[in-house]
């Protein structure tokens, strides 16, 4: 593309953007200021694999980049969208995409922007992560020089293995506060992004663990007193290994990023559903207002259909999200809500129309107060399941061929499975129940089983990583299921090998 054409294209995007801003205001969306950067494809793929425009170095990002690139090369143009939770909101457009796709992405991004500004789970995330990540990338590079790339990598590997286990209690406000820059507590020492891990005199909290340990032993209590879902924080504070400053910094960087991305993990379906709900409206308006030619509008329709396409082998969060929001809007416009309506067993209640026009009000409310787990639990009904054509498939072997067939269309069975897998944002709930197991400073983790078992090989390898951080034997209590029987087991890794103890079997009648 020639320079002047590029400039013309940018000008056209700027015009479309200011028009979108105008309509967005009319529709009542409440956004942060929005910035768009048009970047080369390679950089886009890099941001997608590193999660942020600049991030610390790790082989797993290199692996993801290669995966992204292969996908991109095979599929050709994809309306990639990357929008960062920051203020001002920053989003990226891929230079190689044609105008109608750029506009689609822009419209979609405004939906995310509104969502991230207003959804309560985003309320306490740090909006300065971009700067922070770029600074920590510099520090980690320095550690690689000082302590060796292998040493740093080992720590990052281990930290990433447990980064999802930060704080799973959604009703505690501290859940979404970054551990490392909490202003209400004592001010962190200059230059240490993990000041709160230190006592006032600069001693690591390990000492206080010793004190707590004595106390707890006298009272015959465990540490932690209550099972602690914040495995990573617990290990950082109490590991018998005793971390050096730089090690705590590395752990903090990974923990802070995980906390930063947590609201996005918890609201994937809603966030994408909301953004799609709005981009479709915004695009129609842009077409009506002459910002898209009929040809470009046709092109948009094609890509929009791809975004909302049915995936025969997986859940499409865009599709499920928008169908749920549309269903809420429809029901509340028609007056299909309220205790009386809920209680009614008449099939006619789904056809009732009181023309109450409460739909828009309700979807705005839901986008503020819900996250996926509760959103799907509350609003996924038989209509949503049928509209998004959901099914459960199974596989069986037929001679030399493995065959996949639709096994379940019953909406409540499907809903049950989906809601269960969205509990705790899809991360198995595992809590630290004892940091002094057997009085030997061994770590005991308990998986709070809810009908879904752990992948054993992954559990084993992750335990190894936990051991790297704890440096004493680590135990995991979980459940294995086979047919109707469920067996409680304790898996132990002591640094050399694994052992497994059967804690009892339960057979359903």
């Amino acid at each position: 593309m020639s320079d002047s054409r590029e400039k013309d294209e940018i000008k056209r995007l700027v015009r479309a953007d200011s028009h979108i801003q105008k309509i967005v205001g009319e529709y009542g969306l409440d956004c942060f200021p929005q910035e768009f950067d048009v970047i080369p494809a390679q950089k886009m793929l890099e941001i997608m694999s590193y999660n942020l425009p600049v991030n610390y170095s790790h082989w797993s990002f290199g692996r993801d980049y290669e995966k992204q690139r292969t996908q991109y090369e095979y599929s050709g143009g994809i309306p990639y969208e990357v929008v960062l939770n920051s203020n001002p909101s920053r989003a990226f457009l891929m230079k190689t995409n044609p105008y109608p796709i750029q506009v689609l992405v822009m419209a979609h991004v405004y939906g995310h922007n509104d969502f991230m500004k207003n959804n309560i789970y985003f309320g306490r995330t740090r909006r300065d992560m971009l700067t922070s990540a770029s600074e920590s990338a510099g520090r980690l590079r320095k550690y690689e020089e000082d302590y060796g790339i292998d040493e740093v990598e080992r720590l990052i590997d281990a930290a990433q293995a447990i980064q999802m286990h930060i704080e799973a209690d959604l009703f505690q406000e501290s859940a979404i506060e970054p551990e490392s820059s909490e202003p209400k507590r004592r001010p962190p020492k200059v230059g240490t992004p993990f000041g709160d891990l230190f006592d006032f005199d600069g001693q690591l909290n390990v000492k206080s663990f010793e004190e707590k340990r004595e106390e707890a032993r006298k009272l015959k209590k465990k540490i932690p007193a209550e099972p602690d879902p914040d495995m990573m924080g617990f290990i950082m504070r109490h590991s018998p290994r005793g971390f050096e400053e730089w090690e705590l910094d590395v752990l903090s960087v990974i923990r802070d990023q995980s906390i930063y991305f947590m609201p996005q993990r918890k609201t994937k379906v809603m966030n994408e559903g909301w953004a799609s709900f709005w981009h479709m409206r915004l695009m129609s308006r842009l077409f009506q207002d002459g910002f898209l030619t009929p040809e470009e509008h046709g092109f948009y329709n094609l890509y929009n259909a791809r975004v909302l396409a049915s995936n025969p082998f997986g859940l499409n969060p865009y599709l499920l999200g928008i169908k749920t929001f549309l269903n809420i809007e429809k029901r509340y416009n028609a007056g299909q809500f309220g205790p009386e309506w809920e209680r009614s067993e008449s099939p006619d209640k789904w056809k009732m129309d009181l023309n109450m026009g409460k739909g828009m009000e309700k979807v705005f409310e839901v986008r503020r107060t819900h996250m996926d787990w509760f959103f799907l639990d509350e609003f996924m009904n038989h209509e949503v399941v049928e509209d998004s054509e959901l099914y459960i498939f199974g596989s069986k072997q037929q001679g030399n061929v493995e065959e996949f067939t639709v096994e379940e269309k019953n909406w409540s069975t499907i809903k049950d499975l989906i809601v269960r897998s969205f509990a705790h944002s899809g991360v198995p709930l595992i809590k630290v129940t004892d940091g002094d197991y057997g009085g030997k400073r061994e770590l005991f983790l308990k998986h709070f089983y809810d009908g879904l078992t752990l992948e054993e090989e992954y559990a084993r390898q992750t335990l190894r990583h936990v051991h790297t951080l704890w440096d004493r034997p680590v135990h995991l209590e979980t459940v294995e299921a086979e047919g109707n029987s469920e067996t409680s087991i304790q898996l132990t890794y002591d640094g050399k090998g694994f052992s497994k103890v059967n804690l009892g079997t339960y057979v359903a009648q």
Partner: protein
Amino acid sequence: MTVRQMDWDFSKRGQEDVARHQKKIKDSIRENIADVISEESIISRKKGQTVKIPIRGIKSYQFIYGKRKGGEGGGGYGLGHGKKDKGDVIGRRPAPNGEGQGPGKGGKPADAAGEDYMETEVDIEELIQMMMDDLQLPDLRRKEIAETLVPSGWSFEEVEKHGLKPNLDKKRSFRNALKRSADSVSKLSEKTGKPMDICQKALNKFKGDYQKALELLQRENPEAELEDEEDKLKPYIQHGDLRYRVPKENVESHSNAVILAMMDVSGSMSTTKKYLARSFFFWMVEFLKHKYRNVEIRFIAHTSEAKLVDEEEFFHKGESGGTTCASAYDLACQLIDTDYPPAKWNIYAFHFSDGEDWDPAKTMVSVKRLLERNPNMVGYGEIRTEVAYGQQLMRNFEESFSLERYTSYRDSDFEYYLGQRAEMPLAGVILKNKGHVYPALKVFFSKEKKV
């Protein structure tokens, strides 16, 4: 302006991370080399030196939910979208193989996320290099090719100034003399300023005596005395012109190896069992190619009788009949005698069977005959992919040749047997699974008679 162009490109750090991941893949191949080299895709590759092999992906481990089990079909299950009714087939793929070692056991179709294995491309040469490092074999690429020198009759290629009269090289002596005469004429002409034909006449007059010819030419008017002489160049043989031929024994250099691949092809040798042998022979050939310029492989299939077959028949066709292993060893001896004289060929003979033999005593006699032919290596591999019952020919090898038995627990209980004397290039291995192919190669390479 809220839309702006940024010409960032993929960062240097990103490239480093890609390289770091690539290195981890290589390390993973190295660590799992025993599994990797027995991959079916390697030996069944169409052509070219690169192969795609599934390796355990370099994964980011976390606590995750397991593959869901317990659908009607008993396999895994998942969620999907589409206009489908209960019972509709939404996809098919080749079933994961029954051996439980391949990728994609159960679970989702390949296009879904969460595969435990990923495919990567490797160069066969790179794999060989990794194995050589692991086997602590010297880098054969940089080392001289192994050569054998073989006498090939007599010839007179060199000549000397002294020798026996019958060996006098007349032609060469004559030529020397002629050359010396011509030199003398030029020198005379240079010294005296007389034309060449006059000088030639002078030399001829004194039958090649340079001094006398010079004296004459330096006198007044020598032309008068030389009128009757010929001006033709003639050889005047002197003692220094004589050359004698030296008889010499000739030696040829050879770099040949032959693999005599012997295998029981009776009904009890299943495809899986033959596969192990095939994988072994594939790598044996690749290794020897690094050592010898010319590597041949001959296939001897046997039931109760042995015959020479081609590769396709050897690995893919089964036959009914009994099992007499001796027949294969006898045919191997015969082949050596006719086609592969040990003086010119490095001989590697390997026999694979499942242990069954109708006449083990006879087989042992034939093995001895083969060993007498001075091969580099005789190897016997007993394939026991099932729990072994019945006859085990390895026992006879063990007793007849006083082999010592070893077990490598590191290589999933790999058992092998070695001849105790250095000059006994005989080894036996028990192959129970794919993972045993690699340690078997190791055993044979450490036992091989040094060339």
